């Protein structure tokens, strides 16, 4: 059975990667990072579905990844703020 979710995850991944490379602003880069990480999580979970139930190890992996992403976003935002504050 071919599901739509892994392809949406891949599209998010490539688009986020493009934004991460092309955008000048650091906040744009951070948002792109979050988008492509979401793509990876969506791909992982949707690819590990079997009999309509998600694989427990993959789910735990994604849960860990989500919390680490939150830490990365918060720390990244603070660093961006510090760098813009230093420039001014």
């Amino acid at each position, binding site marked *: 059975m071919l599901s739509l979710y892994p392809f949406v995850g891949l599209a998010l991944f490539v688009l986020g990667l493009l934004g991460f490379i092309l955008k000048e602003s650091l906040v744009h880069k951070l948002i792109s990072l979050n988008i492509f990480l979401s793509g990876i999580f969506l791909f992982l979970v949707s690819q590990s579905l079997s009999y309509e139930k998600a694989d*427990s190890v993959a789910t*735990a992996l994604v849960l*860990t990844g989500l919390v680490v992403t*939150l830490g990365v976003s*918060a720390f990244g935002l*603070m660093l961006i703020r510090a760098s813009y504050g230093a420039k001014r």
Partner: protein
Amino acid sequence: MLYKGVLWCMAALFLGMLFFMVATMPPFSPKLDTLVQADLAMSGVSHDVTAVLLNFRALDTLLEVGVVLLALMGIQVVSPHFRYKPYTEANTITDIYIAILLPVIILSALYLLLAGSYKSGGAFVASALLAGGIIILKLTKPKLFVSLEKLHLRFLSALGLLFFVGIGVLTLIEGLFLQYPLSYASTLILMIETLLMFSLAIILASFFINAVQDLE
């Protein structure tokens, strides 16, 4: 302009390649999941994701909490130079709102924590909810936790990780690091989850509060 066009073309090609690879991939066979389901009775909890997170791969969770704590340390190093005063004053509407909302938030966080042992839920979801509650409380009452000692706050936010590591060291007496004895597994997991919930909620709320706190 040409450079961007070439990059877009390459991205489209890359995406097409990935699509092709995923479409022709062999179907997923849940090898690890069958192992988890077979040993679920040994883990002390009846939900598979919680069993993986806090028993079979407990080291990952420990390091994850460490990463979050490290992020908080980094934020506290960077943030003191960039704080500004929150624009809040006492207001009947927000006071009544928080008085109704906060008990519900705490109750649902505790429910989510306890539900983690038999269905989806657990310490991380509960701590996110509790952190939201703390942030709302701090936004409506900016003066509330100002008198709290810095050292106590640091101890509280490190408490979950310290307890986790302490349990790990205690389990070294017999067996491997974080290999719980069978008869205590359920109690240990619940204790770790409870402490993790409180300290993670404080860490996650501090991510936000460190940015808007006013300097004393």
